[in-house]
């Protein structure tokens, strides 16, 4: 069953991030996907995440599709103007890609080509509206398309943003112009997520909670201090500090993720795992969370 049908039927959905390689060798990326495919419903393929040059998202999406799995094409507004966005989206549809996640995109100065020209011809709300326009069989200028798209469009939000209110208004706009599901930034504080959920109930849109396994206490502290809007509670950081060996850290990390999943599960419609290289930890997380089989 496709992601769209699962979400529309109200099923609990598991998605997982897949990063395209820096280079042309897709072997490892596809091996990870094959290993995790029995456990998850769809793979989000990132679009030059953190403004670091990698293979294009649509290329890895097409390869995942060829393997018989379901990709979610992540599209940012950073690198393409409205001409290139439309071209890539039409191409993606022709390659069998049916899901799109629309994002603003990190600023180029965060990545490995800080000299690059930032584009931002459209913003993420306009990108979602543009995809709806392509779905209706027209381009942004109103010209008729020979063959329309029928993308299932998602949006992102940071549930622990502070202050949250402007982000809630933006999310409402995203849903109004056509977002049909939401995948969130990483959540480590289930209480903060629950507060967010209460404020978004009237939007009636399925929300998939983002999870990034913590690799160490240092990473937890770095994220808490340097990644905008990620809130890592002090007790979670201390929990990671208590893990001394690499094996202990992996185990503790999986336990923390599973605990968050169990807490948020009744309040959301799925989870979105961003393993950041720890793809082999995914089965353990899902097992501990009671989401295997």
């Amino acid at each position: 069953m496709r992601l769209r049908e699962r979400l529309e039927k109200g099923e609990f959905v598991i998605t997982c991030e897949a990063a395209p390689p820096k280079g042309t060798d897709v072997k490892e990326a596809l091996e990870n996907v094959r290993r995790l495919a029995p456990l998850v419903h769809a793979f989000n393929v990132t679009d030059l995440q953190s403004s670091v040059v990698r293979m294009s998202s649509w290329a890895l999406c097409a390869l995942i599709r060829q393997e018989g799995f379901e990709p979610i094409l992540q599209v940012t507004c950073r690198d393409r103007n409205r001409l290139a966005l439309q071209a890539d989206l039409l191409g993606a549809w022709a390659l069998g890609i049916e899901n799109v996640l629309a994002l603003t995109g990190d600023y180029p100065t965060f990545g490995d080509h800080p000299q690059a020209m930032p584009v931002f011809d459209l913003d993420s709300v306009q990108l979602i509206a543009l995809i709806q326009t392509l779905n209706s069989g027209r381009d942004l200028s109103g010209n008729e398309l020979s063959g329309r798209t029928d993308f299932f469009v998602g949006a992102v939000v940071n549930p622990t943003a502070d202050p949250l209110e402007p982000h809630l208004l933006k999310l409402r706009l995203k849903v109004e112009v056509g977002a049909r599901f939401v995948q969130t930034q990483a959540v480590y504080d289930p209480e903060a997520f629950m507060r967010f959920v209460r404020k978004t109930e009237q939007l009636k849109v399925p929300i998939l909670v983002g999870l990034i396994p913590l690799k160490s206490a240092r990473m937890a502290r770095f994220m808490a201090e340097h990644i905008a809007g990620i809130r890592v509670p002090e007790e979670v950081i201390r929990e990671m500090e208590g893990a001394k060996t690499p094996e202990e850290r992996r185990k503790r990390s999986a336990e923390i993720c599973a605990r968050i999943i169990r807490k948020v599960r009744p309040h959301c419609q799925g989870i979105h795992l961003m393993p950041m290289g720890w793809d082999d930890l995914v089965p353990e997380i899902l097992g501990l969370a009671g989401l295997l089989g």
Partner: protein
Amino acid sequence: MLVSELKPKEEILGYLREGERIFLVSCGGCADVCEAGGEKALSSLRTVLQDAGHPCVGETVIPFLCNKVLVGLRLSRLQQKVESADAVLVASCGVGVQAVAAVLEKPVFPASNTITYGAFQGVWPSEERCARCGDCVLAYTGGICPLTACPKGLLHGPCGGSYQGECEVERGRPCAWQRIYDRLEALGRLDLFLRYKPPKDRQKERDVPLSRRKSLFWALEYVEGE
């Protein structure tokens, strides 16, 4: 000189709620020279507003609206009239609109689009305040320009990098959309935040037609040389 032109009247009227009382401000500097300010703009805006049932509770021409001190002084003398208005409509470049918005706790709407910097750039560093995009959005953003104040030029709220009022691009830099949210909330006009703005017409940023290049430098270099 900043070259501006009045927006279509439908767009201006689209900012206003039924029967809202308006105070008119017009720039007697650059905008006057390009016939989008001064008395001329006041009289055409007055007609547009009256025809649409919006009472004009007062008006003033201020020489160089980009002079924030002058704007503050002049408007404080007209305080009673300004306070009786629901909103203020400003005929000037984007810098002038922001100068007025910065001194008033009222919705301030632009009557004009700013097309080019031309030559003389007023008295407030123009490029920091106005991107001369030709399609002014200050009406929806509480008089704070998201094109110059947000590195991504976003039109519908903050990106995920906004945190505790700061921009992701630079520590200590205020997030433009947090400022816009705070301002619109204070004005009770979050409905403007929630309006969908279609993608900007970038032709207006890029191509300045010869007919509009009536800047001082252009005139000196080309017209007089002929």
